[in-house]
C-alpha cells in the first residue's frame, strides 16, 4: 500500500469510527441520515476523490478508492459516499459538472436515493444528470435505503469516453460492493476471533476448540481471496479504464459473493445465539454482506459472463489471456 493511500485510509477510518460504531447504523435504519458523518467525509473531499485534479477533484487512483471503500465496508458506513464517488467520477469523465451532495445511481432501488438531490443515469455512453423529485422508499436486506426514484428532466448530459464503456455504472458498483464486502468480512472475522477468545464454554475459550479454529482459518482464506481480487480489479481499472476491467471486476464480485456467503455463515456459527440478536453488532455486517453480494450483479451473473467468455476463447487461450492482463 502506498504511503498516501495509508494516510487516507487512516483518516477516513478515524472519521467513520468516530461516528460512533453501530449507532449511526441504527439511526439510518430508523430513517435518520447521518449528516455529520456525511459532512465529515465530504469535507475531506471524498465525493470528488475520483475526479481528476485538473477537473477540480482529488485525483485518487481506483486502487486508493477501493481501499477507502473497504474501510467504509469495514464499518458498514451508512452513507452513500462510495456511490457518490463513482457518480462524480463518471459525471466528470463525461464533462458534466458535479453537483454537491449525495448522488443517486440509477432510478430503481437507488442506494440512499431519498437523500439525493441528483441522480445519474447511463444509457449507452450517454450519461445524464436528473433532479430527484420523489422517492418511494425501500430497503435491502441490510436495511440500507434502496429507493425507487421519480426523476425530473435531465439537467445536464455528456458522453462517457470509450475508456469507461456502456457498463461503467454497473462495473463501478460491482467493484464498490466487492470492496465493501472485503471490508465487512475483515470486520466480522476480527469480531469472531475476538469473541472466540472471550467466550468460554466447557471451561475454556471456544477459540481453543479445533473446530472453531479450523472454521475461522478457512474464513481467513476467503477474506484474503476477496482482498486480493478487489485490489486486482482496482488495479485493472487504473491500468486500462473501467471498460477494459470487466473481467477483473467480475472476478472480484464472484469471489466476494462466495466469500460473503461463507463468511457470514461461519461468523454466525462461531457467535451462536448472541450473534443472532438485534442488539449485537454482528448482523449489521452479515446483513450487509447478504445484500451486497446481490448488488452490482450477483456472483452468479458475473460468473456467467466470465465463463461465457472463457468458453468462447477456448482452453488454449485461458492461461495466456489471464497472464496477458497483468498490470
Amino acid at each position, binding site marked *: 500500500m502506498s504511503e498516501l493511500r495509508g494516510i487516507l485510509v487512516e483518516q477516513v477510518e478515524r472519521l467513520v469510527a468516530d461516528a460512533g460504531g453501530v449507532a449511526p447504523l441504527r439511526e439510518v435504519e430508523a430513517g435518520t441520515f447521518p449528516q455529520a458523518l456525511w459532512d465529515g467525509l465530504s469535507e475531506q473531499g471524498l465525493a470528488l476523490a475520483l475526479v481528476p485534479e485538473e477537473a477540480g477533484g482529488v485525483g485518487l487512483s481506483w486502487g486508493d478508492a477501493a481501499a477507502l471503500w473497504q474501510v467504509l465496508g469495514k464499518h458498514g458506513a451508512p452513507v452513500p459516499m462510495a456511490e457518490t464517488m463513482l457518480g462524480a467520477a463518471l459525471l466528470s469523465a463525461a464533462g458534466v459538472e458535479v453537483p454537491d451532495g449525495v448522488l443517486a445511481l440509477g432510478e430503481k432501488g437507488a442506494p440512499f436515493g431519498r437523500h439525493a438531490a441528483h441522480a445519474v443515469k447511463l444509457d449507452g455512453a450517454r450519461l445524464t444528470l436528473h433532479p430527484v423529485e420523489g422517492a418511494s422508499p425501500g430497503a435491502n436486506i441490510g436495511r440500507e435505503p434502496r429507493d425507487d426514484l421519480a426523476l425530473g428532466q435531465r439537467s445536464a448530459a455528456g458522453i462517457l469516453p470509450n475508456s469507461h464503456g456502456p457498463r461503467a455504472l454497473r462495473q463501478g458498483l460491482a467493484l464498490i460492493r466487492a470492496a465493501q464486502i472485503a471490508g465487512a468480512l475483515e470486520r466480522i472475522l476480527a469480531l469472531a476471533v475476538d469473541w472466540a477468545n472471550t467466550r468460554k464454554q466447557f471451561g475454556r475459550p471456544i477459540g481453543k476448540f479445533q473446530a472453531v479454529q479450523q472454521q475461522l482459518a478457512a474464513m481467513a*482464506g476467503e477474506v484474503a481471496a476477496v482482498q486480493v481480487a478487489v485490489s486486482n480489479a482496482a488495479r485493472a481499472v487504473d491500468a486500462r479504464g473501467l471498460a477494459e476491467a470487466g473481467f477483473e471486476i467480475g472476478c472480484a464480485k464472484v469471489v466476494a459473493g462466495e466469500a460473503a456467503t461463507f463468511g457470514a455463515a461461519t461468523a454466525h456459527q462461531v457467535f451462536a445465539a448472541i450473534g443472532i440478536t438485534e442488539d449485537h453488532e454482528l448482523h449489521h455486517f452479515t446483513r450487509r454482506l447478504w445484500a451486497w453480494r446481490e448488488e452490482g450483479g450477483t456472483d452468479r451473473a458475473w460468473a456467467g459472463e466470465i465463463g*461465457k467468455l472463457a468458453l468462447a476463447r477456448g482452453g488454449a487461450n485461458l492461461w495466456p489471456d489471464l497472464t496477458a492482463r497483468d498490470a
Partner: protein
Amino acid sequence: MRFDLPDTPPGAEALRAELRAFLAEASRAWTPEIRARSWMGFDRDFSREVGARGWIGMTWPMAYGGRERSGLERVVVLEEMLAAGAPVGAHWIGDRQSGPLILRLGTEEQRRRILPGIARGELAFCIGLSEPDAGSDLANLRTKAERVPGGWKLNGRKIWTTFAHKSDYMIALVRTSPAPEGGSRHAGLSQFLVDLTLSGISIRPIRDLAGADSFNEVTFDDVMLKEDDLVGQEGAGWAQATSELAFERSGPDRYLSSYPALSQGLDALAAHPVPGAEVTVGRMVARLSALRGMSLSVGGMLERGEDPAVEAALVKDVGNVFEQALPEHLRGLLDPEDSPAELRALLAALTQLTPTFSLRGGTREILRGIIARDMGLR
C-alpha cells in the same frame, strides 16, 4: 495478514513467450497422466533441458550457476510450467527448497559442490522429513545423527520421501541432541545434506494408489556423514526448515495442480455445450485469478525479503481447496460419455491424486491451525 500485488517484472512477457514456445514443443510427448502428475512427475531429460535454458535456480548468483534474475521472473517460469502440466519433479525440490537452503545457509564448499548441478537440472533432491511416528507431528522425529570422529553417524528411517529412489541427495531433518526437558520439542534437530549413494542407505519405493512409485521409505544404517554435510547450524534445523515454508507453500504448485483439466474442460464444453456450464466455469476462472493474485502477492513479499509465513499458508489452504474441487466441478458438468478420451484420462488420474493435495507440504488441519494461531486463537 496482508496481500499486495506486485508489479509485473520487466521482461516477463518475453520470458513467457520463450517458455511457451519451449513448452509447446516439449508437451507433445506428454500423456494425460504426465500432465496430471506435473510436479509429481520425474523426468531427468526434461529437467536438463529446462536447466540448459537457465530456468532452474535462476535467481541465484552466476557464480553458482544461477542467472541472477528476480524472484518474480522465477514465478513466471513456475506458472508456465505448471499451467502446461510439465513433469518438473526432477528439479522442483532443488529449485524450490534445497538449493535456496544451501545458498542461504550452506558452506561455500556446499554451494560450489551442489548448486551448479541443480541449476543444470542434473542434481535431483528429496526432502527427508516424515517418519513412521512423525507425520504432522514433526517434533517427534527419531532419526538421529551422532557425532563421531570426522563427522556424523546417521541412523533411522524416513518415510513418504518423494522421489528418494530417483534423487541424488536428500536434505534430512534429524535429531542431533535430545529435546531438552521442559524446553521446545523442536530443539536439537539439524539438517544434513545426504548423498544417497552412501553405503548404509537403503531405499524402498512405496507404490501409491495410482500405481506410481513416487513415495519411498529410506533407511539409514550407520551411514557415515562428513563434518561438512551438516547444513547450517547444529540444533537449528527446525527453524531452518520452517523458514523456507513460505516458499514451499505459496507457489503456483499450490493452486495449479489441476489446471490442465480446466483448460481441457473448456474445449470439451465447447465441443459438447452444457447449458448453464458458464456459471461454474466462471466461478473456477474467478478463483483461479484470485489465487494467482494471492500467490503473486506472496512472491512479491518474498522478493522484498519479508516473511509472509501465514500468507503462504493461506495460499496453500485456499489453493488446495480449489485444486481438489476443480476436477469435481468438471465432473458436475460433463458426464464421462460426453468427454473426450484425453480429458477422461486426465480426470481419472487427477481423481486419484487430489487427496494428496491437502496432505503434502502440511495437512489442511495443520495449516489451518497455523493460520488460527496467527490470528490470535490459542
